[in-house]
């Protein structure tokens, strides 16, 4: 015969954990919703820029439209980069709401921005930023990658001319697979700067020697 006290205690414990569950779920959901909204807003801006780029190609009026595209693209790069940080935090912090779907959409948007920049460079005749492609393994703890991410993060903040595009090297997204294959990425972490692959951890000095800081 089970005494009342055990049933009561079990009931209270379950209630407490259920209450905690709902609080945590609410927090996770709100965090994911905020990320989704932010990402949609960036995607909308990017669509507008892409259409403007198409128009500049169609109207052959790069001189007038390139400064406008510059401004828009810089803003999108900043927004997307800050979203990357938020996404990473959410991935570590969330328990119940998976941000995997948002992450996939983010990676696609990031790849799109990278390719759009290359197109813009071709259309306007100058490069807006020095892109650094950073390949890391998704879902695996890699201490060197954590250190690399921290170095890149600091560099991107100090040097406005450097823009980091982070991609999971083991992603199943076709465009990311194509990029990794094109540059011959075979180890983690890897960086691609000036179309050249640098395997393993690269120090701040090594990166600056290639990209410069301005």
């Amino acid at each position, binding site marked *: 015969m089970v*005494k009342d*006290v*055990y049933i*009561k*205690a*079990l009931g*209270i*414990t379950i209630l*407490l*954990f259920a209450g*905690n569950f709902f*609080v*945590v779920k609410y*927090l*996770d959901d709100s965090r994911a919703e905020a990320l989704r909204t932010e990402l949609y807003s960036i995607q909308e801006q990017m669509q507008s820029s892409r259409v403007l780029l198409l128009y500049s190609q169609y109207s052959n009026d790069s001189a007038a439209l390139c400064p406008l595209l510059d401004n828009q693209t810089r803003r999108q790069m900043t927004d997307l980069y800050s979203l990357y940080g938020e996404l990473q*935090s959410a991935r*570590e*912090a*969330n*328990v*119940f709401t998976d941000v995997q779907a948002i992450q996939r959409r983010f990676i696609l948007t990031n790849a799109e921005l990278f390719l759009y920049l290359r197109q813009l460079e071709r259309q306007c005749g100058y490069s807006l930023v020095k892109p650094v492609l950073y390949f890391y393994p998704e879902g695996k703890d890699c*201490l*060197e990658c*954590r*250190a*690399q*991410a*921290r*170095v890149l993060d600091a560099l991107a903040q100090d040097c406005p001319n450097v823009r980091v595009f982070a991609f999971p090297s083991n992603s199943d997204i076709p465009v990311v697979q194509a990029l990794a294959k094109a540059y011959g990425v075979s180890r983690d972490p890897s960086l691609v700067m000036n179309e050249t692959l640098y395997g*393993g*951890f690269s*120090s701040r000095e090594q990166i600056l020697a290639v990209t410069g800081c301005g």
Partner: protein
Amino acid sequence: MGKVAQPRQRSVLLWLAFALAGLLGGLWLLFSLVPYMWIFLGANFIFVFISIVYLLEFWGKKPETLSKEFPGVTVIVSAYNSAPTIEASLKAILAMRYPKPFKVIVVDDASTDNTYAKMKKFAGKLTILRNPENKGKAASINQALKLVKTPLVACIDSDTYPECNALEKMVPLFNSPKVGAVIALVCVEKPRNFIQKIQQIEYWVSFGFWHTALGKLDGLLVTPGPMSVYSAAALRKVRGFDEGNITEDMEIALHLQAEGFQIKCTTAAKIRTEVPDTFGKLYRQRLRWLRGKIFNGWRYSKMLFNSSYGDFGRFVYPASFVNELLGVIVVSRVLLMHASNAFNMALGAFNLAEVNASALYDAGIYSNAVVNSSAFFFVFTVILWGYIVWLSFRLAGEKIHIGQLLPITVFMTVYSMFISLVYFASMLHEAVGVERKW
């Protein structure tokens, strides 16, 4: 020239290595199969459940009915090399108030210091026995027990100073022939350093809240060595203390439980005792206690999950082991996480990894600022744990002052981890069969 390990030492070391490998292998398997979040949440759920059971018992039961009779009492003190404390201890014992005169028997267990000389200063007020050779505390008490003619026996350590009302407050709890022993609130005598200040809080929590709650469930697992009062008839029924036991105070409590006796607890009586003042002494003491818990646990395993022993067998006894095992699992998981980071940093420092140690440190390995949602699951645990500490202070009649905040914090965090590690070490010692020593 270094010492060469003797064959016996070598075989112990070998078994120790096997046991360590086995335990670590088991933990590794668990950690590979169960994500760390579920380990922490599961352990947290069980801890909260157990704590709520005890809190409900603590809040719910009416105070004990007190007996108005004050039967005769004999006090037994066993002393071994207790010169620094024996005089003060005997003075405190002789100063105890009791409606009837009580007899004091002191056994000098072949001390090599001047304990005996100090005892003799009290000649005429107490009976002094002297062992020709060291027999151990349990044997000394058993020897004195043969001279006991009173219904109650108080066993007091020679480094313990009961408050003057201790007997008066403890004896009325012998309100039925089923009561085999009564225990009191054991406190730390004048804590002088930080290690003792942490133990002071630990004693208030363990002997205050936990023992009160356990007592209400008839689930006390120990009659503390510093001072416990026993029914002489109950002691005779269990044939006294187990002389080969390094935690005879736990063995006797389990034996009394197994024989159907009740153990009562009061926090109205305070007993002050000396505690280890260095980390090494504390480690050795706890290793002995926890080894005692394991092998006595094994000896009385028939009571585990056995409803015929009431709440003790059904819940308290198994829960005490579950709690300790979960502590080992959680602490090992936390340490594994940090150890792997530290190992990688060390590789970097020795240029064995391609990234230097400072870059790894800078990567925020030890400074993750993200507030994890799962942390909310532990908020209640921290509140609950804090509430138990606060209740324990109240039971001890103490107020929390600012100087105690640091020892309280250390007690609630690092100290609990330390105890779990000692439990891990005691499991190893028992698995290997390292000789049990006082």
